[in-house]
Structure formats: C-alpha cells, structure tokens
C-alpha cells in the first residue's frame, strides 16, 4: 500500500540534495518484499528478502517492548493495559 504513494522506486533519497529530498520517490522495506515476491525462487533474492523481513520483525518486536515499558508506570495506579 505504501509503495503506491511513495513511488515504489528502488532508490535511496539523498538528504544532500536539499529540500527536494522530501519529494524524492522511495520504496519502503515491506513494498520491496511485495515487488520482488516473484523472485523468491532465486536463492540470493530469497535471502535478501528474508533479511529484510527479519529487520521488519525486529523493529516490530522492539516497538512492542517499548510499548510494554511505557505502560509499566501505569501499573502503580492499577491500570492494566
């Protein structure tokens, strides 16, 4: 979904380009997996895509841990979230 609005182009926006950097197309990690899913049969591409998925999963896990840590102070007020 994100690739539909972010351009879906395998290109790294360069902050050195100035403010136009904000308008440069990009392709997020999840969109990269979707764009290359037909090449999963190729071992190098397969390994790359699984590595990207691992980065995404690690990020999600860390966000989950941060969310858990943020909720801890509320426990002393009896809030169970």
């Amino acid at each position: 979904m994100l690739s539909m609005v972010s351009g879906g182009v395998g290109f790294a926006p360069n902050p050195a380009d100035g403010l136009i950097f904000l308008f440069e197309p990009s392709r997020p990690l999840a969109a990269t997996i979707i764009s290359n899913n037909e090449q999963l049969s190729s071992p190098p591409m397969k390994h790359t895509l699984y590595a990207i998925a691992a980065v995404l999963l690690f990020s999600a896990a860390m966000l989950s841990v941060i969310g858990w840590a943020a909720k801890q102070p509320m426990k002393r007020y009896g809030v169970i979230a």
Partner: protein
Amino acid sequence: MTVAQASLSPPASPPVRRADSSASWRLSDRIGLGFAWFLGLLFCAIAAAIVIYFLVEGIKYLRPSLLVTNPTASSSESQTGGFLDPLLGTVIIALMAMAIAIPSGIGIAVWLSEFGRPTALARLTESCIEMLAGTPSVVLALFGTILFEAPALGFLSQTSHGIVLGQSFFAASAMLSLVGLPMVVATVREGLQVIPSHVREASYAVGKTKIATTRRVLLPAARPQLITGSMLGLGRVIGDTAIVLLLLGGTLTFSNANSTPLLGTLRGTGDTLTGYIYYNAPTGDGNQPSKAYAAAFVLMLIVLALNLGVDFTVRRSRAKLWN
C-alpha cells in the same frame, strides 16, 4: 456571635464550585485542548474526504456488469471484464480467516482473563499476541510461504511436478487469521475484565463451575465486545494486500487445483478486492484506475456495512443485556 450561637446556626453553605469551563484553565491547557480539537476535526475531515471521494468516483465508474463478470486479459479497458472472482475471493477469505480467528481468539482471551495459569506462560502469551498485532503482514506472508511450501502441507495447496507451490485459499486464510486474532483477543479480554467480580461470585454461589460460569454467564455478557472485536478483525482481514499477493497468488481469477468442486477451489489460487485494486491502480501493472475506483468503492461499502452492522448489533446486545 457566641460559640453557642455559632454552633446552633446553620452550617455555612459550601463554596460555590466554579463552572469547569476551559476559560478558567491555564493557557498551556487551553492550547492543548485546542490542539486536540484541531486533530479530532482534521481526522474527521480526512475520513469524510476519503468516503466522499470514493463515493463520487465509485458511482461514476461502477456498473452492474462489473459485479457479475470475471477479469479477462485485453488491451482495451472496456473488455477487461469485472471483478466477480476477486469479490467472491474476499468473501471466502474473510469467512475462512474469521472461522479460525474467532474461536481461537475467544479461547485465548478466556484463558488469559479467567485462568491465566501458569502466570509466566500467560504473560508470554500476552506479549506474543501484542507482538503479533504489531508485526507487518508482509512478514507473516513470508513466514507463510516457508510454512506452506513444506511437503507435509502439500495437500493444502497446488503442486507442480512434486513441488509444493504453497499458494491457496487455505494458506492465505490461515495467515490472515493471525492478522485478525489480536483484535479478537484484545476486545474479548477487555469485555471479560469489565464484568464485575460479584457476577462471577453469584454464579459460583448457585453451584456453577468456573467453566459453566464462563460459558453461560461471562461470554454472553461480553457478547457486544466479542462482536466488535470480530468485526474489527474482519475489517483488517479484508483490507490486507500483502498476504493475498504472496499466499493467494494474486491471479485475478480463480485457478482451481483440481476438478473437485469446492476443495479444488480452496486449494487453488485467486484474488481479493484489495489485490485487484493494487493491480489496477495507476501505479500497478494493470493501470486501469476506473476499475480500481469501482472495486475500492465496493470494498468501502462492505467496510461501511460492517461498521453499521457492528453498531446495530452492539446496541441491540446491550439493550437485551440490560433488559
């Protein structure tokens, strides 16, 4: 006034509480309130803009023929057919995924809320459910490709020359059920936790066991939350694209695995409305925006109908519960 007179005189009236209006607040609080109002109105405007835009564009392009014809390959947009198979695919996927997610979600929520022993396992389960809720669906899709390409699960999808392709309605709905599961667990658990403890105690007092109490007292009382969670989960399931593209094949039309009427279809590949929209969007390979707008309009109508259905059912359940 003497002390005796003072003790006999009527008590002084309590100080009149000033109206809790925002005018008496500190400036920073007032700025915060104004910002909250601005954000609330902004999100209302964004939601209204999306609905109105797709209503206008969808009505412009939606034709009854689109709902009853299948997509076909053609260089002319007028001859590429409609989206019957993606529409049916959406219904099949939604039913199958929720058939897995709802019973599993209720079971997990009841266990976490009412039993929760051993405590360490319950906490671990809670953390896993939270992590599942935050996991991008594309990661689940990739995991699904590993899982369903295993020869042991070959009976659930198509095989070609002994190679298991791992793409089928079974595979997609199994992974999509993981997308809907956290919503069901969270809302049912919340519904069970807000039931006062005296309701449970009253049930135990008349001799009901814990399981009977859960089945006959707590779950009926938590029915509104159960319906809400199911519908929210369903909304996430029918709106997902990544799992559909990777595990359902995104083939636009049904491609049966064999000639067996239902099983052949479920073991085969297909598509849903989200996959169809992705393909036909201006950035997609199909590049037929009018068809994408029409399909998006139908998808939005389904989601709106679900929301209205939830609202109506929850109100009715609450009224019945209080009566």
